[in-house]
């Protein structure tokens, strides 16, 4: 099977700590791959490196068959991302946000119109397409971001905590759509999440903690390995019962996330 993502000894070091330490993994084409770990484990840092917006300290990565360090443009054309925090322009309408995206990705007008129409209908946002994004709830913004991330038919779709802060209805709607899409289009999905039940549907899951991969396998393999009956319990078993990360104040967490993102954004 062809590889959609290949990371070799991927490392990101900052002055005082190592966010990602020599991780290697492969994701197959058409695979639905879960990447889970506690706060500050290195998930977002990894996604940032895979998606060309953060330079790794060392290591090799290829995405959709292109070298992430040398063929940034080809990689950027082949991927879609739904970021952890919203990245829509709230002063534009939903459709204008999509139009901007389509233009930047070189989509033709007709193709853009038909795809936008179809996708907006799927996420039930057709009626609100001409409203300013600032009037949307978190769930509505997320749905627009999902439409945007899919508009240019990426080969690899990165989802960084896509359902954080969403109500169960929206969450299940989004997953229904993503699962359908993944079956239909054979798109590769790379998911990071805190919400472990979401990984039950993954083909394979990697558990990362403190910048290192602790375990990698299908959900049933992982459950067998850790002798647990749910991914939630597997996660706790693998990463330990301690909640050191939770003891940090919100400020510290924010700063840590900020640092992880390379002090950017």
């Amino acid at each position, binding site marked *: 099977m062809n590889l959609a993502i290949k990371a070799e000894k991927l490392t990101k070091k900052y002055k005082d700590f190592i966010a990602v330490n020599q991780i290697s993994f492969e994701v197959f084409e058409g695979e639905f791959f879960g990447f889970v770990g506690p706060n500050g484990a290195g998930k977002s840092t990894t996604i940032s490196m895979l998606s060309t917006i953060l330079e790794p300290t060392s290591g090799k990565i290829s995405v959709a068959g*292109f070298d992430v360090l040398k063929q940034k443009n080809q990689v950027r*054309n082949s991927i879609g991302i739904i*970021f952890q925090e919203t990245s829509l*322009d*709230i*002063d534009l309408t939903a459709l204008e946000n999509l139009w901007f995206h389509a*233009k*930047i990705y*070189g989509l033709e007008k007709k193709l853009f119109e038909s795809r936008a129409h179809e996708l907006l209908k799927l996420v039930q946002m057709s009626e609100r397409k001409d409203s300013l994004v600032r009037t949307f709830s978190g769930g509505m913004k997320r749905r627009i971001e999902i439409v945007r991330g899919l508009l240019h038919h990426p080969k690899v779709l990165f989802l960084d905590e896509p359902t954080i802060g969403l109500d169960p209805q929206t969450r299940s709607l989004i997953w229904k759509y993503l699962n359908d899409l993944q079956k239909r289009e054979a798109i590769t999905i790379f998911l990071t999440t805190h919400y472990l039940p979401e990984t039950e549907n993954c083909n394979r899951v990697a558990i990362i903690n403190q910048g290192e991969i602790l375990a990698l396998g299908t959900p049933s393999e992982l459950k067998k390995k850790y002798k647990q009956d749910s991914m939630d319990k597997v996660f706790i078993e693998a990463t330990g019962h301690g909640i050191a990360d939770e003891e940090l104040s919100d400020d510290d967490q924010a700063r840590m996330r900020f640092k992880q993102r390379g002090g950017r*954004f």
Partner: protein
Amino acid sequence: MIRPGCVSNKGEVVSNFMQKFFSDVYIIWSRELIRFWRNKVRVLSGFSFPILWLAVFGTGLSASLSLPVPGVKFIDFLFPGVISQYTIFIAMFGAISILQDREFGFLKEILVSPASRTAIALGKILGGASSAFLQALPIIILGALMGISVSLLMLLALIPAMILLAIALSALGVAIVSPMKSLDAGQYIFQFITFPITMLSGAFFPLRNLPLWLDILTKINPLSYTVDLMRRIVFTFADMPPEAVTALSPVIGGRVPSIAFEVVVTLAFCVAMTFIASLAFRKS
């Protein structure tokens, strides 16, 4: 869009690349214009600034202060100065939008896209410059209301000068904010820079008979020549006595610099700033 592995000659690849490049600049630029148009109420409220400077300060000072040039009132002198000052402020502060994009996450959407970093920087510069130009343009109407004999020719001559000034300052703004991460820091730094460069540009007082230190500071400021260029345009088309046109210009080596020299300085400053801004943005 260039597809890898597709067979095409080199010329075609280059032309596709250029097409994509300009299309990206255009998209980034048009987003800025949409945002500008959507915020027009906020934009209009900023116009109190030139009204106060020109109508209140200019008229007030003209009443008791006379310039050493017969036939020229202080408000005539101040008019091009206020146009420059407002253009400088708005163009520079326009670059704050990069920090806003960073804060609100939209910059990530742009940075992860296949748009080239240079195209993004140029689009941002042109967006900020257009909005500054459009906001400064009504000052010309304000000037006419204040009794300055504005003409169509004056307007046509002023427009290119204003555009160059707007691009240069917008680019300076982009160069400054590119390495910055926080919105607050940007606002402080801009206050810190815009006031001195405007004060030292001859926008508020003629660059004549100054003490040596102030004379040097104003002459190494490239904006002094742009501001003087704008004033010469205004004076020329407002039918001032010919000797008045250069009577308030800076003097270098006993001579008033030629119009050509001032145009070249303005153009060079604009190009240099755009180049530096693109570089700074690519590095960020």
